[in-house]
């Protein structure tokens, strides 16, 4: 779903055709037969694991309604995607006991169990957000083995540490003895690599690097949020820029796993003004491929995770990684310019990760943000009455808003209780952003 507009971007390509002839080197035309090209692999310098540069994020499996109307994972679609992914060289699958209301691990496990265990790597996490007692944490850890039908994890992560810094880390993992437990498990071979995923400030990250340097605990790998926006334009206060994180990890030879290379699909569906400039350079490449190539251009990156929710982005991504071309310095500079321009748009920095959900008051937070962002990237954002087509855009926004979000889950129902604040890995001030959108909707309704 997040990426349903993925292909649409391509249609904007025609406008850049003329300009492309001026200076860009000709690229091989892409056809279906190219899909058989070899997935690019990276080697883990610490243990020799050959990991596909494109990894499968299991946070966005396709959902369907079952007989009783409940949303469940479309297991048939998952199987099909996993089979296709493995057949095309993807061998890294990342999940968590918290994803998709706790349904993700089982779905991934069921699909993967149909393949030889040695043909893929499993990454999952200790996502003990609610109750981080030793008992609850060990139960979560053991449950993951059952859900995924395996007796070892290739990559095991302390899920999303960084908020609350060193103190919170010690609360969740050290004082309750979980670090010692996990190291014991590693010695037994049930965990092959122990690392963590990170969202947080520079200070927090530095403290985890100090832990590594001092030898208290060593990190076999680290998962960070990295893309051409976060490279230099994370908010800088609560979330540190990715260029810093990457440099620190590379310096220590810690393999880097990348999450949110597309910011939950937002970098696959960029504003027209941005996509046009990309098309001027590469008429046949999508905005998503630019974002992937940006991440893959850094050699310390072991794997780039993408939460693919249907066969369409999966196939397209496999093509991108099939004939992967790293960006040169000039192209990296271009991406930086795009990032600067992107910051000009009033987008909400939401990646639709659902960590904020469920909102206790029933607000569809990611849905509201996504609807709002889409109107900006599609250029259907009604700004002022002087704007051409204002009335049409106004109506279109209000109608699609009501269609996308039930009235009682819309932004005006947010009471600002603030429960969501600490849950957001992007440090979005969710109540403020909802109020901003509510004010915008109110402005449209009142035709101001």
């Amino acid at each position, binding site marked *: 779903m997040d990426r349903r507009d993925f292909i649409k971007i391509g249609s904007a390509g025609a406008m850049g055709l003329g300009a492309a002839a001026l200076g860009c080197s000709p690229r091989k035309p892409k056809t279906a037969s190219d899909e058989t090209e070899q997935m690019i692999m990276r080697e883990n310098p610490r243990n020799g694991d050959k990991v596909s540069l494109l990894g499968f994020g299991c946070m966005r499996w396709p959902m369907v309604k079952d007989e009783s109307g409940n949303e469940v994972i479309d297991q048939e679609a998952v199987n099909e995607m996993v089979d296709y992914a493995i057949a095309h060289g993807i061998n890294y699958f990342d999940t968590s006991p918290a994803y998709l209301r706790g349904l993700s691990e089982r779905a991934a496990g069921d699909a993967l169990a149909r393949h030889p265990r040695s043909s893929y790597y499993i990454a999952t996490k200790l996502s003990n957000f609610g109750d981080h007692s030793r008992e609850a944490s060990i139960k979560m850890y053991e449950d993951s083995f059952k859900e995924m039908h395996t007796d070892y994890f290739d990559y095991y992560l302390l899920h999303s540490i960084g908020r609350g810094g060193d103190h919170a880390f010690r609360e969740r993992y050290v004082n309750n003895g979980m670090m010692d437990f996990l190291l014991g498990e590693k010695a037994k071979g049930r965990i092959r690599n122990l690392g963590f995923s990170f969202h947080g400030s520079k200070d927090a990250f530095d403290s985890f690097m100090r832990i590594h340097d001092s030898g208290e605990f060593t990190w076999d790998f680290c998962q960070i949020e990295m893309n051409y926006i976060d490279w230099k334009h994370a908010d800088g206060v609560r979330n540190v820029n990715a260029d810093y994180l990457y440099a620190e990890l590379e310096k220590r030879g810690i393999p880097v796993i990348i999450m949110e290379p597309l910011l939950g699909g937002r970098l696959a569906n960029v504003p027209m003004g941005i996509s046009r400039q990309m098309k001027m350079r590469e008429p046949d490449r999508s905005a998503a491929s630019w974002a992937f190539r940006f991440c893959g251009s850094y050699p310390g990156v072991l794997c780039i995770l993408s939460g693919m929710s249907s066969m369409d982005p999966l196939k397209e991504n496999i093509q991108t990684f099939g004939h992967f071309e790293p960006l040169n310095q000039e192209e990296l500079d271009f991406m930086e310019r795009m990032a600067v321009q992107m910051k000009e748009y009033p987008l909400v920095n939401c990646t639709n990760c659902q960590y904020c959900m469920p909102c206790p008051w*029933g607000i569809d937070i990611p849905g509201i943000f996504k609807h709002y962002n889409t109107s900006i990237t599609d250029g259907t954002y009604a700004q002022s009455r002087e704007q051409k087509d204002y009335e049409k855009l106004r109506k279109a926004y209000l109608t699609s808003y009501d269609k996308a979000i039930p009235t009682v889950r819309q932004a005006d129902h947010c009471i600002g209780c603030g429960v969501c604040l600490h849950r957001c890995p992007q440090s979005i001030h969710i109540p403020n952003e909802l109020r901003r959108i509510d004010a915008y909707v109110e402005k449209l309704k009142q035709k101001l």
Partner: protein
Amino acid sequence: MKIIRIALALLFLSGITLMFVGIEGLSSWMGWMPKMQFLPAVMALNAGVIIFIVLLTFCFGRIYCSVICPLGVMQDGISRVGVLVKRLRKNRRPFHYRKEQKLIRYGIWVLFVAAILAGVQVFVALLAPYSAYGRIVNSIFSFKTGPVLVVAAVTLVAVGITALFFGRQYCNIVCPVGTTLSFFSRFAIFRPVIDADKCKNCKMCEHACKASCIDIKTHSIDYSRCVDCFDCIDNCKFGALQYRNAYRKTTAPVSMEAGSANGRRAFLAGAALGLGALSVKAQNKKVDGGFAEVLPKRTLERETPLTPPGSVSVNDFYRRCTACQLCVSACPNGVLRPSADLNHFMQPQMGFENGYCRPECTECSTVCPSGAILSITREEKTQYHVGTASVNRELCVAEHGTSCGNCARHCPVGAIQMIESSEGFTVPSVDASVCIGCGACEFLCPARPVSAITVNGRHQHLDI
């Protein structure tokens, strides 16, 4: 002649139907049509329209019933089907002369007038032809279940069957507007006249008369019941029937001038929320994603009913409203719905479970044909204090320590202040003198299924 009648009738029927269905844009052209309706015009004391219709009837007979009245035109359509079916069964005499049912007809009329004066709205709303049509169309197109649907269905079946077998009997026995107009049409200047010299007594006209008002035995027509459909003239092969000035031996063409009134677009009432159960249950988060349940808000019993801005007072509103449902189908915010209360059966009232009376919206006031909701501008809207909000501190989440203030944040007139409670929480307090009763606070209050802040109606809406 008949062609012109049918064309104009279809124009009116489709125009009014479209208003009820709420096709956007079209209705800006059709807005005057509901205001041409007789009973709403009487309720609105719209002298222009009343005089126009009375003069029209006095000059040309009950053209109103054949052209302007949607229920009448609908019956003509049904009756036409009945005639065709009868023809298929070799019955070439679908209608025949009946005597005027004076006792029933005038009895109903007297009761009806008494009901208006006494304010017995149920009776008025049940019989009023335009309101009956409005209910039928509104219920069919909006799929709203409830008592109104039952009434509409019963009306449709009763009127439909009567029309199918007996033509315009409803109009000439039950319909109070028909009876009123009959007082004038009796003396209509232009009317179908039988030339006894030319008549061959074939009775073709009598058998074609939906109103059963032609008596060929005496070569007379009961003009109190004739609705000027011209079917008789069409069916006379001998030219014995003419539509002409009955007092002079000249003929004049029928001319119809449409009065103009302003009206604006009507929206289809928002479809019912397809939400299942909704209740706010603060879950202890363990996994990502999913939705908390949100209970639907319960429909409240309000001590004083809420009637829309533009109604001067509750009493005035209920006195004038003919329960035609036009405002209900025009309300884009899901606020107006027909009442199930017997005293105001089917007359609209407001409720804020699915939306509130938005500051920019004046849709109901622009469509109301009866003057129950006066036409107001967006600026004038805040002068109408239709209700007053009050806080139930037991239910308010802010009183229990949750940071909220959603009511104060959304009050369009700033009537709600957030103040510090004795327990140190920031809680809402309503300035009743400022509150206009729009329901934004009630709709947006997080307490469910009953809001902690609710609006009660005010009897008098305008402070003069």
